[in-house]
């Protein structure tokens, strides 16, 4: 099911790549953004972006058009 895979990629894999895979890259203090060290900023940013990814996944997800759930 191709769309199911895409939903996984967007909703789950993307945040995991951003947080886990890229970890060595974002685990640093410089540059400061909005006053926060970069690593904290990155995590806060991904609070927004994860919600956005899940929103996109939600809109694409055919399971949401089912009547039985």
């Amino acid at each position, binding site marked *: 099911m191709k769309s199911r895979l895409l939903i996984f990629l967007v909703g789950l894999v993307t945040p995991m790549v951003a947080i886990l895979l890229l970890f060595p890259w974002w685990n640093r203090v410089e540059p400061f953004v909005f*006053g*926060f060290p970069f*690593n904290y900023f990155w995590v*806060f940013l*991904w609070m927004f972006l994860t919600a956005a990814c899940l929103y996109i996944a939600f809109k694409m997800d055919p*399971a949401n058009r089912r009547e039985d*759930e």
Partner: protein
Amino acid sequence: MALFVFCSILVLSIVIAVLARRGVVTSNMSDIMVASGSFGPFLLFFISVGEIYSIGTLVGAPGAIYSHGANYGIWFMCYILLAYAIGYFFNPALWRLGQLSKAVTIGDLLGWRFNSKAIQMLTAAVCIMFLMPWVQNQFAGMAILLKYLNLGIDFTPAVIISAIIAFIYIATAGIRSSAYVSILKDALMIVSIVVIGVAAAMAVPGGVGGIFHAIAAKSPKLLTVTTQPVTAGATFTLSTIVFQMLGFYLLPITVQGTLTSKSAKNLRRNSIYMPLYMLMFPFLVIAAYYALLTIPGLKVPDYALLAVSVSLLPSWLVGLMAGGAALTGILVMAVTALTVGGLFSKNILGVINPDMKQTQMVRWTQVATAIFLIGGVILALYYPTLMASVVTVAYSGLTQTFVGMMFAFLWKRSTKWGVGAGLLVGTVTLFLLKTVPYGLNKGLIALLINLLVAVVVSLMTTPDQETVNRFEAYIAKSKGPVAAKAGATPLQVV
């Protein structure tokens, strides 16, 4: 003044809990444990955040950031964030299994799917054991709150009163009361956190940047996750993030929350809001680092947030925050005790005595809840502990059900022997494991061993026909209405 506000909040919460009873028609297990699956998106959201954000968040997290800096702060937020992404996919699956099995506890879910009373009892036993630290944590948080703030309430009566209030929530309307009280609790928590964060930022020249630049100059190690030596920080941090993000929605209390939902679609939608709710964390982090800057050398790190609020806020606001913090502790105490009560009465007593009537089981649930709370009070009075590490212990055990649950969704060939053996071995490993390679999270190692054992034993045994039927029913249900009608074999209900 603070005391007055504090007490008013607690009284208000009791009023709300009692009013929640208005929606209740019958008092059976399904209603007290999962509100008969009637929660729409609003209550689903509040029971979710109610259970997740405990006194560990409000008091424990700043305390741990104060002690360990980003090593704690970063992983704490990361595992929760990723857990929400997993939850989008995981929760509807769990809910579907719940619909098929008419489950009201995690013991029901696994017990039904693997057609095994032993699995019911084993799951219940493991969950009850590891939920004890969870409730202990809330009492410890209350202790810290009251000791520091000196509101004029002695610790012992306060702990007893908290336990009584928690019991009132459960005795009036089970999980429903908790959902409604959570509205008050979360409102107070958000207001407190934002106010403290803003006050801290305003108190330092340069605001947020001022705080962090000053920390960067003084003790930069507190701002990043330690990578040298690798074992000290990074491997533990990352392995713990991975481990706990898997376990998050398997915590028996969050399972209760998931099962209250009216629909799978609401669960998915809820998953979208949850990361946004985390936007209170920047304020919490600001307050924690502000404490590091202005109040270094606190003997009890968990005092950090409270010390900041006392130094920056007027008395009535401190009372408000204390009330909110107390509610976070009491609410999670209540839901945890309810979960334990249900697991005990349904999946242990109910298995030993299958003829137990619903009303009896509800009574037993309330009794078990009360005993659990009393036990918690005693532990709190004699063994208060530092908060953050206790959560790790609880997670290490509660996540062991991950293997069973994933097999439930994905593997036809999995058997009750495999799942049971894996769960048992995984749990025992936790107690036996003394050193871990590369500083990896102990629970994760135990989980991998659990998986291995579960696979091997499943392959050596065969699942009975009913177990296979139930797997196929689950698959049929996940595919949708058309698939479900064609060729489904009739099932036994638990």
